[in-house]
């Protein structure tokens, strides 16, 4: 029987977790949220360690120490690598849930089969399926984001993919039902590892058809799965703390996934049933269109004359590591009394909120980061919209061209600004291969080159100019 003190500690920890997330509602209190989370986890670990059944302190200390050895360096990755770090930590969370579930099953089977009631067995199977599929799925996502050589970057699709995946999943469910009905039967000992294997394969299959632009949604979904596997573990262990913390994590992943879906005009079922990447199928546009390009000097002059400049960053800014140069440009413009805002699209980058973190790293005050819905009504008053490594999220075809694969997706209305500068690496169409109508607009001038270099040149030009005053 768990002592009341331990139960009380779990209760307090649950409340602290809720506070931790509550304090994330504004950047001003967010760090308090981290402290609440640390306190809650410490309390939970301490209380569990104090349980009478827990011995072998050297094992526990050793594993915790190993966690620190790997965890500390993982927290120091450059911020451009945060998406893959997040994916990797989902993998760790998944494998932890899967292994605990596996251990529980064999343990109870040997010692106390009566413990494995249909309720607990259902939870346990849910735990291992979610845990192991999150493990391999997140590893694949990590590989794609890190651009590991043997992980295909482009979506891998084959005929009958959905049928095959559904078949795998259905097979796992059938096996699961047999194990739930009779966990002590001889075939259960074969079916259980088979379920694990199927979940591991399913995780890989789930991620290979996904392209980079869909990563924010996928990471959010994997986040949700990791939480739900903790919930399932809570049901197995009768731990309300695990259920609470897991449910918080599960709903967080769910909400983020829904926000991402809305921002791409995709239905949630469309994403859930693995149709990821389909939207990326490019269609070649027939007519030959012409870009207008602009020189650095010309662009600098226009920027100098502006009252209101909106910078629209995208994944390209992260790739080029251009955020610090962007900060210098921001400073140069601010110095001239020009108002500078950043327009952030919810799916810009490779995970929810990616751009905000990069810009915050470059010391840009978060008060100048504006959400899409807030900035769009003001776009016609904007003198210059500067597009840095963003593409689909500013493509007006999403509003006008019904045949476009991104039709209906909410975009930042860069085309409504008085003038637009778009920085683009080369004249080839983007990764998705979708023509961006913005680039051919009357008001748009292209600045070709690496984002970091182009902005660096702009800063130099502006700095030189101000010296002559």
């Amino acid at each position, binding site marked *: 029987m768990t002592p009341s003190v331990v139960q009380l500690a779990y209760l307090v920890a649950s409340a602290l977790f809720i506070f931790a997330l509550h304090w994330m509602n504004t950047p001003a209190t967010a*760090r308090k949220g981290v402290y609440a989370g640390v306190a809650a986890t410490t309390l939970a670990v301490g209380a569990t360690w104090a349980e009478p059944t827990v011995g072998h302190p050297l094992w526990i200390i050793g*594993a915790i120490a190993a966690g620190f050895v790997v965890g500390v360096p993982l927290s120091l990755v450059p911020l451009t690598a945060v998406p893959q770090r997040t994916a990797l930590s989902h993998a760790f969370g998944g494998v932890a849930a899967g292994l*605990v579930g596996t*251990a529980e099953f064999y343990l109870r089977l040997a010692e106390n089969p009566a413990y494995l009631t249909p309720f607990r067995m259902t939870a346990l199977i849910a735990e291992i399926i979610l845990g192991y599929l999150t493990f391999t799925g997140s590893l694949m996502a990590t590989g794609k984001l890190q651009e590991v050589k043997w992980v295909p970057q482009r979506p891998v699709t084959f005929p009958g993919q959905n049928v095959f995946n559904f078949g795998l999943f259905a097979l796992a469910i059938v096996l699961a039902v047999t194990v739930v009905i009779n966990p002590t039967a001889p075939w259960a000992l074969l079916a259980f590892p088979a379920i694990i294997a199927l979940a591991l394969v399913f995780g890989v299959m789930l991620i290979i058809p996904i392209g980079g632009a869909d990563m924010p949604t996928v990471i959010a979904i994997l986040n949700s799965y990791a939480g739900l596997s903790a919930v399932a573990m809570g049901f197995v262990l009768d731990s309300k703390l695990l259920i609470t913390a897991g449910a918080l994590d599960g709903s967080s992943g769910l909400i983020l996934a829904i926000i991402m879906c809305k921002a791409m005009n995709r239905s949630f079922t469309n994403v859930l049933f693995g149709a990821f990447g389909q939207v990326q199928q490019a269609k070649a546009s027939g007519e030959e269109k012409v870009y207008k390009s602009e020189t650095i000097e010309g662009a600098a002059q226009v920027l100098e004359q502006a009252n209101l400049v909106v910078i629209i960053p995208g994944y390209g800014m992260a790739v080029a590591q251009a955020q610090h140069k962007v900060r210098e440009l921001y400073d140069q413009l601010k110095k001239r009394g020009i108002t500078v805002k950043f327009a952030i699209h919810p799916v810009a980058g490779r*995970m929810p909120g990616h751009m905000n*973190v990069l810009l915050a790293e470059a010391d840009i005050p978060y008060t100048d*980061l504006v959400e899409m819905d807030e900035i769009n009504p003001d776009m016609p008053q904007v003198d210059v919209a500067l597009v840095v490594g963003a593409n689909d999220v500013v493509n007006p075809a999403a509003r006008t061209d019904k045949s476009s694969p991104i039709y209906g997706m909410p975009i930042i209305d860069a085309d409504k600004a008085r003038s637009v500068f778009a920085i683009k690496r080369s004249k080839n169409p983007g990764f998705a291969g979708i023509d961006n109508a913005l680039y051919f607009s009357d008001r748009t001038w292209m600045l070709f080159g690496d984002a970091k270099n182009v902005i660096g040149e702009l800063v130099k030009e502006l700095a030189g100019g101000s010296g002559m005053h």
Partner: protein
Amino acid sequence: MNNEMWATLYVFVLASFIGLGVIRRVSRLLHTPLMSLTNAISAIAVVGAILITGGDYPLRIRILGAVALFASMTNIVSGFLITDRMLKMFKSEKKPAGGGAERS
């Protein structure tokens, strides 16, 4: 199903609603730190891992537990540290930024 199981289901449903309510209010600026924070929070699976690792169980069972404990602990440590590291970077305009005084 006995009362205890129904109680756990109630906790799940209520906690999910609290989660939906609380997360909906999280600032969009902070969605990346939110994700690393929830990562660390869901590593509460560490509780299950400790129970398995520390129990008087066969060796192979405890090895599974120890690996799970290691994985959860990695998430706890790196999750909280990186969340704090990112949050430290979010500054409002009040601080004396270069050229701030010249803003019109």
